[in-house]
């Protein structure tokens, strides 16, 4: 620590720290644009100018940029100095020369860093009297809107997109005051992290296009801390709601997990919450009927209670449902009749992974840990497409070598410009061994594409080179042995090596091989880091509850060992062979589905209960790191959708067997008691009883508008179309019951005017129990605009209100980043003790998994891949957009999803007489598919790739052997 003097006040800061960062950490207001805590300093915008003095006798001083100044003992600066102040206002005036004067119609308005900085510098009057420069905007795809006239040329976009995220198709073009940030031509931005530009851009050049489509101001959004549900990484998110629809997702900072950035699937995949396919009320199939009919929750619960009283009820849980939902189901059916809802393969692999991470001496790293790795082996996992945010972290790990070079030249590591000048493209070793090319190959020291068994053999070979005690690979060819030697050399030379693998290529051998490498690395000192990517947002949580995969459940149904199946937030058809599911469901007497979207499984159910999505419920997810993290209800939801655990508990109560689960904390407590491995989940976030100065924490910002109109039943946003639901009238002039003591509910009902009971949900449109609505000229509905109480939330310490404790909340409960003078996302600076460091009070979540000590090598080494004469090994090809179940429900993501295809080695295709684009027939045990052929040199001969999880390919067990023929014409 050193002492520095700012405006004659002494402060202790870390030696060599970035002065701008230090000032911000001290809570001082110093404006900036081009600097970003994750991107470092380049000194372009000149906005953070301060006056530096040689000593206390120096009265002249000189202007320096805080972002390029290291904090050294005795450093003496002034922020308030009139000259520095005038210059900072002058920089804003320069930036305003060409910036439009139309904040009121700009999407960024109200959360614009440029607005904040303008106010901060005191610049109020523009003297520039000449014509403004204008640009043409580009079409950049479905995610981002481009408005170049708003550009202030801070270079952050290209520094994030190119330097940080490895994108190639966005660049700075032209020069002087015509620098243009865009693509060479209009087109979809290719990089998987493009959406971060909306947050990185300090003004309205790059804005969230999906948000624009149903725009609202930041201060009108109701927000709550959440966790992304679109992969197993567990990125922290901040979803925002207005008028009953989820409007957008922004990054929620977590120092150990996602830092400042999300992937585009996580940011844009939330559209399923607003989907027309949402189930909004219970549906019941009356006996012998082909169709289901809506029923009241009471009827539905009575039905479920009756089914549960039956002889054998099994529960099929879900890796995409919360720990609490899965636990409530397990509680209802009993542990021996609970299945974790994963495919047979995923269930086995996830169990294997948990076994490795809890019993072997290997440690699951956070993303932040991964970024510190100085040598990385990726074995078998296409992380960019299965756990995208990890790929962004691995890109940062590759830069360790550059930082070392710069450090050796005494360049401060926050000085991004100088680091890149000094280290150029120096990279730490990254080895990517996968069954097909990945989007990390461009920064890899070496890539190797081979069949899963060969990948496993490579891993086992690396482990053996690292530690001769690890089993040797029999019959290893010279090429693989040499590669294994090079990988082992790099990993053993590293200070912090990392191995990354996962369930992606469906091979337990690959995971075991990765574990051997990590164990071989860890022997001398600390446990080595091993990241094993789980397929879904709560794969670990579901697996920790125990239970087998759905294959066992299907078998039980088919054999008649169970009569009733309750399927929780799960479309079975995505996880097993269609025929097997059909047989099982036909054999089942009763099928109950609790989910938020209609799907093939729900279509066969006797009873369907509408489940709240992540945005309408609270619960816990366990990430691939083994971190239990709580997500919170963002809004109360529409229709009768409620938390799955609540449905299950209410059904049990209806049957007279309730567990006493009145709130989420009760479920958590029971779960923690029943499952020692899940004991930590109670500490993932403060309980519902938590209060600050006796108050809850408001989900609505203090500037939230339109509340009276909304809660009074009048929707001020007439343009918002509320989803048309059976028996639901559009949200609008809805007659409502007033349950307040002064209300006249009974009176209203007595008049025969259909009144809606809003006691449970408050501000949301409710299904109208009576389809007949007489509204003659003389029968104008009674409109009650009395402001109702906001919906109650017994599960969390957050309130559906703008009232409550407005000060600093614990990190797990921060609903919005806002601070005086800081309205943009960069208000985050005010929530960290040290800007760029952990959130004040510690980052949220609890690690449930820590290394074990069982030093047992895996020795089941597969034989080398042998191609077959008339069959191909069909391997899964993952797509960030398309392979995951929920995100393609978002229209913007759907636009980016590929159509099914068959990827083949050109030589193999040629042998079959197939050219690119030709139709091929792929025959698998699950059935036949006709697919266009794509030629891919990265796919080894004897293998072929099939996109995973798409409509038409989901449910196919991959890898597996299949026959390929030219299209056979009928």
């Amino acid at each position: 620590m050193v002492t520095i003097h700012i405006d004659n006040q002494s402060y202790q800061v870390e030696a060599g720290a970035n002065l701008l960062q230090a000032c911000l950490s001290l809570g001082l207001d110093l404006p900036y644009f081009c600097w970003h805590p994750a991107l470092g300093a380049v000194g372009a915008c000149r906005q953070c100018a301060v006056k530096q003095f040689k000593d206390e006798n120096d009265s002249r001083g000189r202007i320096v940029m805080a972002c390029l100044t290291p904090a050294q003992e005795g450093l003496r600066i002034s922020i308030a100095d009139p000259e520095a102040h005038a210059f900072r206002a002058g920089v804003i005036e320069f930036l305003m020369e060409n910036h439009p004067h139309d904040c009121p119609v700009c999407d960024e308005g109200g959360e614009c860093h440029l607005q904040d900085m303008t106010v901060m510098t005191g610049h109020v009057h523009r003297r520039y009297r000449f014509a403004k420069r204008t640009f043409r905007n580009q079409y950049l795809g479905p995610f981002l809107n481009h408005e170049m006239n708003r550009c202030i040329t801070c270079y952050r976009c290209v520094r994030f997109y190119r330097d940080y995220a490895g994108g190639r198709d966005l660049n700075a073009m032209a020069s002087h005051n015509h620098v243009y940030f865009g693509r060479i031509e209009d087109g979809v931005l290719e990089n998987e992290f493009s959406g971060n530009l909306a947050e990185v851009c300090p003004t309205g050049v790059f804005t969230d296009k999906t948000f624009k489509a149903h725009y609202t101001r930041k201060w009108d959004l109701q927000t709550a801390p959440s966790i992304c549900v679109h992969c197993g990484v567990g990125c922290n998110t901040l979803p925002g709601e207005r008028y009953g629809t989820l409007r957008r997702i922004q990054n929620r900072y977590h120092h150990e997990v996602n830092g400042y950035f999300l992937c585009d699937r996580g940011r844009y995949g939330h559209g399923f919450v607003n989907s027309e396919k949402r189930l909004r009320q219970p549906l019941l199939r009356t006996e012998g009927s082909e169709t289901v009919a809506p029923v009241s929750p009471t009827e539905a619960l009575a039905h479920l209670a009756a089914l549960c009283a039956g002889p054998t009820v099994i529960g099929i849980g879900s890796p995409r449902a919360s720990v609490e939902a899965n636990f409530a189901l397990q509680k209802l059916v009993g542990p021996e009749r609970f299945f974790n809802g994963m495919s047979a393969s995923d269930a086995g692999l996830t169990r294997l992974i948990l076994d490795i991470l809890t019993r072997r001496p290997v440690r699951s790293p956070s993303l932040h840990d991964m970024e510190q790795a100085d040598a990385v082996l990726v074995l078998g996992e296409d992380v960019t497409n299965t756990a995208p945010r990890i790929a962004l972290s691995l890109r940062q790990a590759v830069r360790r070598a550059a930082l070392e070079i710069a450090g050796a030249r005494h360049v401060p590591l926050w000085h991004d410009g100088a680091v890149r000048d000094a280290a150029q493209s120096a990279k730490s070793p990254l080895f990517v061994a996968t069954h097909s090319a990945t989007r990390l190959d461009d920064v890899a020291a070496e890539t190797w594409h081979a069949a899963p068994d060969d990948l496993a053999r490579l891993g086992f070979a690396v482990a053996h080179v690292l530690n001769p005690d690890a089993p040797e690979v029999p019959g290893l060819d010279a090429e693989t042995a040499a590669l294994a030697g090079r990988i082992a050399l790099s990993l053993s030379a590293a200070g912090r090596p990392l191995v990354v693998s996962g369930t992606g290529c469906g091979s337990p051998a690959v995971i075991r091989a990765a574990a051997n490498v990590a164990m071989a690395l860890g022997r001398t000192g600390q446990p080595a880091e091993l990241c094993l990517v789980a397929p879904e947002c709560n794969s670990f949580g579901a697996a920790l509850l125990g239970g087998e995969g759905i294959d066992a459940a299907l078998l039980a149904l088919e054999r008649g060992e169970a009569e009733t199946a309750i399927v929780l937030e799960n479309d079975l058809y995505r996880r097993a062979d269609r025929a097997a599911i059909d047989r099982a469901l036909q054999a089942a007497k009763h099928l109950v589905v609790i989910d938020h979207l209609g799907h093939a499984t729900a279509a066969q159910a006797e009873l369907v209960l509408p489940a709240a999505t992540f945005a309408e419920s609270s619960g816990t997810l366990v990430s691939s790191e083994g971190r239990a993290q709580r997500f919170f209800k963002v809004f109360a939801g529409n229709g009768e959708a409620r938390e799955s655990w609540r449905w299950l508990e209410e059904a049990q109560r209806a049957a007279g067997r309730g567990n006493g689960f009145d709130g989420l904390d009760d479920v958590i407590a029971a779960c923690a008691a029943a499952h020692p491995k899940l004991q930590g989940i109670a500490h993932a976030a403060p309980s519902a009883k938590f209060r600050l100065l006796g108050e809850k924490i408001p989900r609505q910002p203090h500037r939230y508008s339109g509340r009276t109109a909304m809660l009074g039943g009048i929707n001020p946003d007439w343009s918002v179309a509320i989803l048309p639901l059976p028996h639901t009238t559009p949200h609008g002039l809805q007659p409502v019951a007033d349950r307040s003591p002064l209300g006249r509910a009974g009176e209203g009902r007595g008049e025969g005017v259909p009144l809606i009971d809003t006691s449970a949900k408050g501000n949301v449109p409710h299904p109208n129990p009576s389809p007949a609505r007489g509204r003659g000229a003389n029968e104008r509905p009674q409109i009650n605009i009395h402001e109702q109480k906001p919906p109650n939330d017994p599960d969390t310490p957050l309130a559906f209100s703008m009232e409550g404790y407005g000060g600093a909340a614990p990190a797990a409960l921060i609903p919005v980043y806002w601070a005086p003078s800081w309205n943009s996302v960069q208000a985050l600076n005010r929530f960290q003790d040290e800007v760029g460091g952990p959130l004040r009070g510690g980052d949220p979540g609890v690690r449930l998994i820590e290394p074990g000590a069982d030093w047992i090598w895996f020795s089941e080494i597969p034989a080398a891949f042998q191609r077959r004469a008339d069959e191909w090994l069909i391997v899964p090809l993952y797509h960030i957009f398309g392979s995951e179940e929920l995100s393609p429900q978002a229209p913007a993501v759907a636009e980016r999803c590929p159509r099914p295809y068959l990827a083949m080695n050109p030589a193999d295709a040629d042998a079959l007489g197939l050219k690119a684009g030709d139709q091929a027939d792929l025959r698998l045990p699950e059935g036949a598919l006709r697919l266009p052929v794509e030629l891919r040199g990265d796919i080894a001969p004897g293998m072929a790739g099939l996109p995973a999880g798409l409509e038409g390919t989901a449910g196919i067990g991959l890898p597996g052997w299949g026959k390929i023929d030219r299209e056979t014409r009928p």
Partner: protein
Amino acid sequence: MEKPLTKNFLPNGAFPDLAAYELAGGYQALRQALTRMTPAEVTQAVTDSNLRGRGGAGFPTGRKWSSMPIGAGAPRPRYLVANADEMEPGTFKDRLLIEGDPHQLIEGMIVSAYAVQADVAYIFLRAEYTRAAQCLRQAIAEAYGAGYLGGNILHSGYGLELYLHISAGRYMCGESSALMNALEGRRATPRDKVLRSTDSGLWGKPTVVNNVETFCNVPHIVTHGAAWYKALSRSADGGTKIYGASGKIKRPGAWELPMGTTIRELLEEHAGGMMDGFALRALLPGGASTEFVLDEHLDVAMDFDSVQKVGSRMGTGTLVVLDDRTCPVGMLRNLEHFFAQESCGWCTPCREGLPWIEHVLAAIEEGRGEAGDLDMLARQAKFLGPGYTFCALAPGAMEPLTSGLKYFREDFERHIGERRCPWRG
């Protein structure tokens, strides 16, 4: 008077080929340096000669070279770059040197490269210098043919590869760090100076960047020694200098003269004085990015320190003369148009400030000036000054403006007051 730099120039515009250059004693310095001197001795000779960088900043060349890490443990490859991106308005001395005697530059570069033990050298040439490019291509080929370039030059064990790189054409590339970025294929934006290029320059490796004229001096220093070289000069800075002059003068041109020749001698003797009917108003002593000097400063010696004492810089040593029949506001507008156009767009004050200044100057010249405009210009000039901007481009652009506002205040005020340009009638 000795004129080592231009002694081989031919009258007909042709240049001495290898044979002619060798006949005139060419490549003897190379032979002497590589076969009879250590690299350190070459550097010492250059240090002793008081040769200062001819690109405009006047940094002592020997000192720059001394900071190059050489020896067994030093990083490789090491680079040497000739900055031939001569885009300073009013400046054309490097072009003359290249076109007049390309082998002199090449020999100078090889000797210099030997001194700093560079492995690869580049000539970064202004795109418009097509004739210079032709000369260099031929000369480089000849030098390779004669074994002066390539591996194991003259059996000395030292080797050097030399490449000619034609710039895509930006004034910014004349700034040595932006030049390195451009050479690497990156945007021609300047680098932060926290790293010295001799530690971490081109591709992060030790790099020496010198001006063409600087390199051309080196063979003569090696051949004749530092004492001889210093004796060529009339000032503390060693050697001769290519001075030039343009404007309404009788004989615009460039001349090799002893360092420290006075402005008056340049203007009156060599340039022949003002054209008939024109009187001297002021002049920029060393290209567009230097401050105006007036009649009263004409007896100042043109060397780095002396010109600085009267508030300007010698810069490139090429005078731009303003006469009494040319509108100074129009001249400044033209200059600032150039700088605004050539700003790389990296830092805010330069990118946004220069076009604003240009707009204001245009408005004043066209009779649309407003009362506060001069204060505005003065304020902008401050915010575009040293320390405020990322590199020296904008501060350089402000040198003629701030001095112009001081010396031509009345002209500005007349423009604004009369709402017209008095020179346009």
